[in-house]
């Protein structure tokens, strides 16, 4: 187990290196000069040339790549071309905002999705089953943009239940310590703010969680159906065990392996793929950060931003793999 973990972590290095190289080449293949985009439409030719030189963009790509890698190995993620701020200073608040939102979204998705899937499987072909599967189908194909705006219109404006945008109430802003606001408000002992932060998380959490929720529900259902047809479940039923225990204890454990894989993959996807939700809900997350960097061709931010998100993605999947063994003793590494 331990040696397996070490081996997997060791494998990460070539994977991330390869990815860094691909991203590096890809963003340089898109047309557009960062210096022009930073200086704007009014900029003179001389200004653009001077800036291009200062940013080192007149160097050949391989020396730029070596320069970037050397920095990386020294723990330097580079400096944003646009804001001229070290990325390591800039990145964390954005990443924290995304992590907080993604965790809430995946929590909603898992709690609702897994239970809906289980109950659907339990009462296969009942109206509940059909309803859940229909909702799941709608959920997978739901345009997030539309869903987010509808949530705002009904829940926030019409029914006045929850705030429309942002991470906190701007009229009583949260003092950032770790930039994970749920944690920060608790550390400061501000429960009123904690509740505000929770309220701000619900709508974007649902918007972001809808697609994973639908995927998890469908996965859980099919996996449960398979398990529930197996012999040991029939035995459990035959010995007169209550159906609830048969489903939630005996079947679920075996049905969970593929579901956990999906949960892991979806969590990873949320980290980088929350751009739409972030845009609608005024959420200062890492998706927007990288997206804007792409628009302004802020090469170091794109490279390091994707690198960090990819690292998290791979680590989550590693964690999931290790989790298998904990859930299912038949799996040994």
């Amino acid at each position: 187990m331990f040696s397996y973990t070490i081996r997997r972590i060791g494998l990460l290095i070539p994977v991330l290196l390869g990815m860094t190289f691909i991203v590096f080449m890809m963003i340089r293949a898109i047309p557009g000069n960062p210096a022009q985009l930073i200086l704007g439409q009014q900029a003179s030719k001389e200004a653009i040339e001077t800036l291009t030189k200062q940013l080192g963009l007149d160097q050949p790509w391989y020396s730029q790549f070596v320069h970037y890698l050397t920095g990386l190995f020294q723990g330097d993620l580079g400096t944003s071309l646009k804001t001229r701020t070290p990325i390591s200073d800039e990145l964390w608040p954005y990443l924290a905002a995304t992590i907080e939102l993604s965790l809430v979204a995946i929590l909603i998705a898992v709690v609702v999705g897994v239970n809906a899937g289980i109950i659907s499987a339990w009462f296969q072909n009942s109206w509940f089953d059909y309803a859940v599967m229909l909702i799941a189908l709608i959920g997978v194909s739901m345009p997030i943009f539309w869903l987010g705006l509808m949530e705002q219109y009904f829940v926030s404006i019409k029914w006045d239940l929850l705030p429309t945008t942002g991470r906190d109430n701007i009229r009583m802003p949260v003092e950032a310590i770790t930039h994970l606001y749920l944690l920060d408000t608790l550390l400061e002992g501000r429960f009123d703010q904690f509740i505000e932060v929770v309220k701000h998380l619900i709508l974007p959490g649902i918007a972001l969680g809808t697609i994973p929720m639908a995927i998890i529900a469908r996965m859980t259902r099919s996996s449960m159906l398979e398990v529930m047809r197996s012999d040991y479940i029939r035995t459990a039923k035959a010995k007169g065990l209550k159906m609830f225990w048969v489903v939630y204890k005996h079947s679920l454990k075996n049905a969970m392996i593929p579901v956990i894989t999906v949960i892991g993959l979806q969590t990873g996807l949320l980290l980088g793929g929350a751009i739409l939700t972030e845009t609608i809900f005024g959420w200062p997350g890492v998706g927007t950060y990288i997206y804007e960097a792409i628009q302004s061709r802020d090469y170091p931010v794109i490279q390091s931003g994707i690198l960090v998100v990819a690292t998290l993605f791979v680590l989550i999947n590693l964690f999931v793999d290790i989790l298998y063994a904990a859930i299912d003793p038949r799996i040994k590494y």
Partner: protein
Amino acid sequence: MKRSILTALALILVLSLGLAGCKSSSESTGGKGSSGGDGGGVMIYGRGGDAVGLDPAHETDGESFIVTEQVMETLTGYKKENTDVVPELAKSWKISDDGKTYTFTLEKGVKFHDGTDFNADAVVKNFDRWMNGDAAKFPYYASMFGGYKNDPGHVIKEVKAVDENTVKFTLKRPQAPFLKNLAMSPFAISSPAAIDQYGDKYGEHPVGTGPFKFKEWKRGDTISVVKNEKYWQKGLPKLDGVTFKVIKDNSSRLNALTKGEVDLIDGVNPSDLDKIKSDKNLQIFERPSMNVAYFGFNVEKAPFNKKEVRQAISHLVNKDELIKNFYNGTAEPAATPLPSSIAGQNKDIQDYGYDEAKAKELLKKAGYPNGFKMDLWAMPVSRPYMPNGQKIAEAIQANLAKVGIKANIVTFEWGTYLEKLRKGESPAFLIGWTGDNGDADNFLYALLDKDTIDSNNYARYKSEPVHKLLIEAQSTADEGKREELYKKAQEIIHEDAPWVPLVHAKPQLAGVNSIKDFYPHPKGSQSFIDVSMK
């Protein structure tokens, strides 16, 4: 058995949803307008993007300037509604007869937020810092003052502190828009002590003399400034502070305003105006235009090297339709490159007007009775002056087709687009311009003089008479005389038709009703010094 469990589960689901709703509603303490005191409170300003940096001399974007304008002030300023120059940190000034020496008398007793005195030395230090920089550090400085210290084009010969409150600028040659240049946001005066203290990080800790002090910046999210209690103008500012909040999506930003989470927003979709008008808690603010959107021709390329062809196309663009369909009425048709907020606009120019028959006649005269094929370049991005380049191109394409001109719409990535325009690769293109210093020179010379070919004169328009007028206007100090010169230049430009000026767009803002004394400035950002919320 099976059914009853199912029903129970469904019931629990419904109940828990209902409860969740009730719980939140009892907790949601009305967020609407928490302003208290006399005209005070903190105003929340919702906008589409974050500042890039807060050292204005370093930046070129409006989202940075609107923050720095609260914190810092310039020597001269602009009037509230147009770009006429008024005193700001400089109380008064004298201009020598040859137009080469400007002597400013500064306000006394003004202090920077860090306690440093504002005086002639501080002004000198700021200018020294800029003129010793380069294009990457202080891009606007070179554009407005002709270069840096040792460049031949640099206009400023010397900046000298005469005494504590008098500073003298000596120029190498007269520069008519000099006072307007000084009023631009990038040339706001910073505390020299703070610049020394923070060095490269000054852009995260701006210190000026302005009505508000910088407090905090959460990147990508909010920037807050708070009232400067020791502000030198008595009784100002009225607000306790301003917080700038980024909400990228226009519809969400309006939702946040409707809900009362923010007090003022920019970037209102023209299509949302009716909704705002019908909400009795909200009001609309219109920013006077300081921009122009235009359809330019490369006058070096056939068939656009023929004046008649350009004039014919000028008769084929229906500006009123464009304004109705793509700006929802929030723009003025443009007859000349200059918007009305800028002194020198020639109001006597009669626009070409939509007229197919005349267009056909002109085309015949030019030798293209059956039209021709052309490429029409459309902007790939949305700008305040042109919300949707593609759609506008399609509308123009449809009109051109009526006389047999087949336009093929072409586009590129934005940076590439600008680069190709500058190199003169495009035959005909949609583009626009937002003014910098509010002077006619910044439109006509920057966009249509023979000197600016290969720079912003994308039409590559070359007219000796226009050049003579523009150069004369640059070195004339008398504003009345300058306006006459610009009016003459506009007549020639109108006749030569290197562009079809399309519209001057008026960006829309919306705010809660309690906002008083807010005047959006044509240049795109303004201080909130007089604004109150009651």
